[in-house]
């Protein structure tokens, strides 16, 4: 680990990356839309070797008492052992909870889903949108890969067949009606080693980085969610630069959202 750290430090301090990238360059991104026929919507995002599937399930349920006229949205992440030697079996660990909550915050606070349109009977019955994150290969930056897969899966999700009069629902029959999606929040995650800040950390970079920051931005450049991680720090000047630069980097990923 010490050798890896000193190697990555010296490469990054020269403004380069171990894999030949620039500091603010993403790895290659490949996207599959709706690969999972059983899901209401799904996306598989490959970010370099990182590989994440997000599936959306839309079910009937009850609204939360404080928002009786809004549908429910829930993000969950399963860091299963298939994806990395570092992932263990067992109940969700803080890393999985943080991943789910950061992806959730971008979508929720960016008001991506028009939850007011998911109400069937106020206070009683609403549509619940579940977004489940399943990494298949974790080679760093699950945050951005998962957030991208989630918004693509949402944009391509269709409601199940439901007859309001008879209250009959057929989860195995999808309609052509799409989820009401208003915005496209995009998450950009940066790592910091010494005083160098770089985009899209790989897993080897994640193992040695001092600090991490994820910023979700909307089309207008406004920030709708942020999260700092790991035990290092950022200066206020660095944070201000990152929040300003994120619009530009988000735009590149947003172009991939279909």
């Amino acid at each position, binding site marked *: 680990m010490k050798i890896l750290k000193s190697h990555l430090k010296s490469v990054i301090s020269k403004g380069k990356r171990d894999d030949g990238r620039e500091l603010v360059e993403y790895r290659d991104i490949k996207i599959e839309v709706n690969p999972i026929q059983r899901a209401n919507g799904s996306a598989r995002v490959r970010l370099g070797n990182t590989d994440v599937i997000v599936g959306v399930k839309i079910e009937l349920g009850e609204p939360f008492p404080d928002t009786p*006229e809004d549908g429910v949205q829930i993000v969950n992440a399963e860091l299963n052992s298939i994806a990395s030697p570092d992932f263990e079996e067992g109940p969700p660990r803080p890393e999985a909870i943080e991943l789910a*909550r950061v992806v959730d915050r971008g979508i929720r606070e960016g008001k991506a889903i028009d939850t007011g349109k998911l109400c069937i009977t106020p206070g009683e019955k609403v549509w619940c949108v579940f977004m489940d994150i399943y990494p298949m290969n974790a080679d760093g930056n699950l945050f951005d890969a998962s957030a991208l897969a989630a918004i693509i899966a949402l944009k391509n999700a269709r409601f199940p067949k439901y007859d309001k009069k008879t209250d009959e629902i057929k989860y195995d029959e999808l309609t052509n009606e799409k989820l009401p999606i208003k915005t496209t929040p995009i998450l950009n995650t940066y790592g910091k080693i010494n005083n160098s800040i770089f985009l899209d950390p790989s897993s080897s970079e994640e193992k040695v980085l001092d600090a991490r920051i994820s910023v979700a931005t909307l089309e207008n450049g406004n*920030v709708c969610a942020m999260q700092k991680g790991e035990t290092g720090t950022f200066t206020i000047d660095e*944070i201000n630069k990152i929040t*300003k630069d994120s619009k530009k980097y988000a735009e590149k990923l947003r172009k991939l959202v279909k």
Partner: protein
Amino acid sequence: MVKKGQPEKLIVKGKRLDGRGFDQMRDVSIKAGVIPEAEGSAELSLGETKVIAAVYGPREVIPKHLANPEKGIIKCVYTMASFATPDRNRPGPSRRSVEISKVMAEALTPVVNLEKYPKTSIDVFVEVTNANAGTRTAAINAASVALADAGIEMNDLVTSIAGGKADGQLILDLFNPEDNYGEADLPIAYLPRTGEVSLLQMDGELTPAEIEKLLKMIKKACEELYKKQKNALRERYKLK
């Protein structure tokens, strides 16, 4: 989105609903050394938000495989009492409390000289006994004083407060209505000696320029909090 109980306005005649100015923090009181069983402790109130923090250790790491032969680790557990919220809060860990515990540990770690404590764990427990927004910032302020009270070697205290936005106005230290119905919440932990940020989260919607203004406001408030933390420690250890 319509939320139940939403007040019509959060800012009335240039004042907040609790009468505060935009950049005014709630009253803060801090007392160090309140839990004799613990190595260090502190009780803190930020307006109606009340927390108690205790530090146990350095002590054996559980589970053992987490022990690091080169330096100590900080474990943090943030919990909220069942009676701390209007509706009874189900005891035990929640996704929210697990996340807060994680970011709190990360916020406190940079000031602790962990090389001094190899193979051990410094365990920080914070109980929120009354919640009126700002519980994670209150918890960090209290935990930091508790660490110092425990005699843990540190190179600074960690200060923490949130900024945010309500009715289009940038504000400091949100209380419940502003947290629930406002436009944005930006909790920060700040290290006064080096000017670094060790916790940053945000939800809502802000422009980069608004974030810059809020960070300035937060920095100033954190310097105030820093004085109060140091006073609490002086008070604890002054000759009687």
